[in-house]
C-alpha cells in the first residue's frame, strides 16, 4: 500500500464511528486536485514562465485569473458536496454468490450535488443519476464471499465539479446491513462436486399431478399450473393439500456433508417448499421452527440458515 490521499482518507474514515445517518461536512469531505488539475497547474507554471521571460503583463493577468479560478473551484467543489445526508435504508438480502444490494438514501434541501458518483470503493463508483430512483434511494451491490450478516464495507462518494480539476470525496461510514443466505444447492450436486456453483432456478422436481382441479377464486397463485395454461388455455390448479398431508420437517440430521454443505442443501429445500407453498418446519441444532408456510415463515427460516453458526 503506497501512501496516497485516497488511502490516507480511507484510513482516517475507517476510524470513525458507524452511524445510520451521516451528513457530509468539512470533517468527512476530502479534497485534492485530480491528475487533470495537476496538469492544469503545470500549464499555469509554463504560462507564468512565459510571462516572466517575455515580461508580458497580460500573460501575468490571465495566469493569475486562471490560478484564482483554480483555487476558487476548490471552494465550489466543497460547497457542492457539503450538507448531503446519507441514510442507510432497510437491508437487502441475497443468496451467497449473488450480488448483495445495499440501499442508501441521499438527500439535501437544495438538490443533490452535481456530477456525484457513488460506489462501494473508489474504483467502481457510478454516476448517481443512473442508479438513483424516485425516492432518492441508491442501490450499491457487493459480492460477499461468505454467508451471514454483512455491513457495507465502505461507501464512497465523489464529485469533480466544477471543472474536473478538483476531486472532492468522502467515505461516509453509513450503517447498512444485509444478509447473505447460504448458496442453495441440491443434494446430488454435492456428489458430483462443487463445480457448477449456483443453481439459478430453484424449482421443484416434477410432481405426480393426479389431483388437478379448475381454478377457483382464492386459490394461491403458486398452485396454478402455468404450463397447462400455455398449452391448452385452461386455468387449473394443483390440489396440493394432498401432497403434504403431514408437514415436512427439514432436519439438519438428514443431510450429509460439512456445515456449509448442509446449510446449502437446507436452503435449497426451504426454497423448494416455499415455491410450491407447502408447509414445512426446520430443525437445526438448538433451533426448531415449527411447520408453517408463507413468505414470513420462509424469511425466518432463511435468516436462521444465514446466521447459523
Amino acid at each position, binding site marked *: 500500500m503506497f501512501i496516497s490521499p485516497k488511502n490516507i482518507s480511507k484510513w482516517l474514515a475507517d476510524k470513525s464511528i458507524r452511524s445510520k445517518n451521516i451528513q457530509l461536512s468539512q470533517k468527512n469531505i476530502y479534497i485534492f486536485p485530480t491528475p*487533470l488539475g495537476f*496538469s*492544469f497547474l503545470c*500549464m499555469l507554471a*509554463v*504560462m507564468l*514562465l*512565459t*510571462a*516572466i*521571460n*517575455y*515580461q*508580458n*503583463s*497580460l*500573460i*501575468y*493577468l*490571465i*495566469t*493569475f*485569473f*486562471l*490560478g*484564482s*479560478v483554480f*483555487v*476558487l*473551484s476548490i471552494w*465550489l467543489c466543497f460547497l457542492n458536496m457539503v450538507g448531503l445526508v446519507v441514510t442507510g435504508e432497510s437491508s437487502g438480502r441475497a443468496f451467497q454468490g449473488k450480488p448483495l444490494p445495499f440501499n442508501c438514501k441521499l438527500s439535501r434541501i437544495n438538490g443533490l450535488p*452535481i*456530477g456525484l458518483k457513488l460506489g462501494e470503493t473508489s474504483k467502481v463508483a457510478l*454516476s448517481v*443519476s*443512473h442508479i438513483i430512483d424516485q425516492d432518492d434511494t441508491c442501490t450499491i451491490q457487493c459480492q460477499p464471499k461468505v454467508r451471514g450478516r454483512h455491513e457495507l464495507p465502505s461507501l464512497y462518494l465523489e464529485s*469533480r*465539479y*466544477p*471543472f*474536473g*480539476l478538483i476531486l472532492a470525496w468522502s467515505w461516509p461510514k453509513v450503517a447498512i446491513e444485509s444478509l447473505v443466505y447460504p448458496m442453495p444447492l441440491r443434494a446430488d450436486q454435492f456428489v458430483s462436486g462443487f463445480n457448477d456453483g449456483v443453481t439459478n432456478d430453484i424449482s421443484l422436481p416434477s410432481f405426480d399431478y393426479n389431483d388437478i382441479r379448475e381454478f377457483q377464486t382464492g386459490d394461491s397463485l403458486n398452485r396454478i399450473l402455468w404450463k397447462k395454461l400455455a398449452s391448452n388455455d385452461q386455468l387449473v390448479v394443483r390440489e396440493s393439500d394432498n401432497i403434504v398431508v403431514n408437514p415436512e420437517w427439514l432436519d439438519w440430521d438428514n443431510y450429509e456433508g460439512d456445515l456449509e454443505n448442509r446449510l446449502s442443501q437446507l436452503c435449497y429445500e426451504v426454497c423448494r417448499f416455499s415455491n410450491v407453498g407447502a408447509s414445512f418446519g426446520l430443525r437445526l441444532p438448538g433451533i426448531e421452527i415449527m411447520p408453517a408456510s408463507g413468505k414470513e415463515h420462509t424469511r425466518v427460516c432463511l435468516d436462521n440458515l444465514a446466521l447459523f453458526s
Partner: protein
Amino acid sequence: MHSSKLNSQIPYRLLLVVIILQTLSHANYLPAWLLSVAAIFSFLVFVSTQWYKRTIHNYLRILLSLSSIVLFLLYFRAKFSVDMAASFLVLAALLKLLEIKMIKDVQVFVFTCLYLSAVSFLFEQGILNLLLQLSSIGTCLYVLFYIQCYEEINNRNGSLETNQIKTLLRLFLIALPFTIVFFLLFPRIAPIWHMPLKQQTTKVGISSDLSPGDISSLAKSSDPAFRVRFSSEVPERENLYWKGLILDYFDGRKWSESISANGFKSKKSISIASQDYIYEIIIEPHQQLWAFALEGSYPRSSNVIQNSKGLIRFNKEIVQPTKYELAFSNENLPKKIDVIPTAYALNLDNPYQIFTRQDLQLPTNNLNPQTKQFVRKLVSESKDSVMLINKILMMFAQEQFYYSLEPGELNDNMVDEFLFQTQKGFCGHYASSMVYMLRLAGIPSRVAIGYQGGDFNQQGGYLLVSQFDAHAWVEFFIKDIGWVRVDPTAMVAPNRILGGSFSALANDPDFSQNNVFTSAASKFGAINWLRLRFDELNYGWQNLVINYHQEQQKKFLESLLGEFSLIKIAMMFVFLSVFLFCVFIFWILFKRFSGYTLAEKKYMLWLLCLEFFGIKRMSGETPRSFLSRVQASKHIYLAKVTAFYTRQLEETEYRGNK
C-alpha cells in the same frame, strides 16, 4: 470502423467556437495556408459532427494531418521564431480537434487553447484582444464544466444549465479581485533565460534605411507610433522633432546607418534640475531597438540608454508597448538661428558635437551630373556655407516643388530627376537631396528620420504621434555653431510642420486612402470624437496595465507603503492574512447565526466559547439541564456566566412580550 459515433458528452459546437476565436486572434501573423487549413478543418468537423453525427473518417484524418504537418515543415523549415511556435500551437490545436473522440482529447484541446490565449498576448495587447481571449477562456472553462455536469444538464432540461452558468459567472467575478491583487503584488522578476523575441511580422513603421517612397507609404497609415505625456506644457509644434535614426551612408539609391554608432556612452550621471522637462513615451511595438526622442534629451528610465551619437536606444527589441522616460533641460533646447530659415542649432555644449568623415561620404560614381554642376555653381556664387545653405533652401521655396505622396518613379540619376524634372516629392526626397547637395559642397551633413508633430489629446493630456507623422529632415555641421537642424520640407509645405500631414495633404486624394477610418474621421465630428476616446482608453491601458513592470510595481508599492522595505511587506502580508481570516470567521458565524434572535445569538456565542474549555452541549439538551451540568463541573466562574446567559435566554424567549 473507421469513424465512430459521437460521444454525446462532448460539446463539439463549443469546441468549434473556441478554435474559431483562437484562429481569429492569431490571424494577423499566421501564414495564409494555415488559415485555410483552419477553415477547412473546422468546416469538416462541423459537417461531420453536426450533420452526420460521426467523427471524421480515420483515413481522411491521417491524410489531412500528414499533409498539414508537411506544409508546416516546408514553410518554416528549421527557423525558430515566436511566429513559428505560435503557428505550431495553432496547428496542434487543429489536429487535436480533428481526432477528438474521448473526454481526454477534449481536455488536451482545451489546455492547448488556454495556452494559445497566453501566446496571443505576445503579439497583440490591446483591450479588444483581452476581451476576445477572455471569452475564449470562458468558453474553454465552460467546456470543462459541461463535461462534468453533462448528466445533470441533460436530465433536468435547461433550468439547471442557466443556473450553473450564473454560478460560473459569479465564480469569475469573485476571481477578479484575487487576480488584481496577485497582479499588483506578485514580484516582477527579470527574465530567467533569454527567449527569442523578435517576430517576423512586418509592422508598419520606420525602417533603418531610407529610399525614395519609404515615408510616403507610412503617410497612408494612421496607426499610432507612440504616445507622449509631458510633465509640463507641450513644446511648440515646430520643435517636436522626434529623432530616431541618423542616416549617414548613401549608396546612390538609399540612405542607411553607418556602423559607427554602436559604441554606447556610459550613462551620464543624471542630475535632475528642477526646471527640466520630463516626458514619458509609450511606444508601440516596432521590433527594433531605436527609441524616439526630442533633441537634447537624456534617458531617465533604465530600459533606455544613449549611444555615441546621442540617440536613445532600448536594451532589447521592442515587441510590446513599452514605456520609457526622458528629460531635457531648457538650456539644451535647440536655438533658432536667424540667418537660415527653419534652422535650429542643436545644443551648443552637447558632448556629441563632432563630425566624422562619414558625414561627408558620397557614392563614388558619376551619377547625377546635373546636380554636381549645379552645386559647383552655387559654391562659386556663395561667400560662405550659410549663404549656400540659404540658396538651396530658397530653391526649394521658389521653384515649382510639390509636396506629394505620389512622386513617380525615379531612375538611376535620382537626385537629378527629382530636382530638375519631377520636382514632386515627400520629405524623404527633400531631405536626402539636400544632404546630397551639402556633401557635394563639402558641408558635413546627414539625414535624420523620425516623426514630426503629433496630435494633442486635450482630454487625455497626451500627444499622439501616428505613423503618418513620419518625417525626414537634415542636419549639417558648420563651424562655431555645430550641428544644425534644417527642414527643407518646411520650405516647400510649411503646413506639414505647422499643421501636420492632414493639412499639408488635405487635397491629396492618395493621403490615407487605404484607411477609411481616418478619412472619415476628418469629416465627421462624432467619429473623430469616438476615435479620440478609444485612443485615450488605449493609452490608459498601455500606461497602467501593459507597462506594469518592475519599476512601476516598485513605484506603486512605494506610493502605498512609503519607503520600500522587506519588513513592511511582511507586515502587510500578516495584516492581509489576519484580515482575511477575520472575514472568514465572521462569515462562518454569520452563516451559523443567521435567523436567530439576539439572545439566542449571544447564548450560542457563549456555547462556542465553552467548547474551548471542553464543555459541549449535547444535541437535544435543554439550556436548563446544560446549565446544571456546567454547575456540577468544577468551573465555578463559567457556570456563573452560563447562568447569566441562560436566564437572559429564558427571559426573552418565554416572557410573553419581548
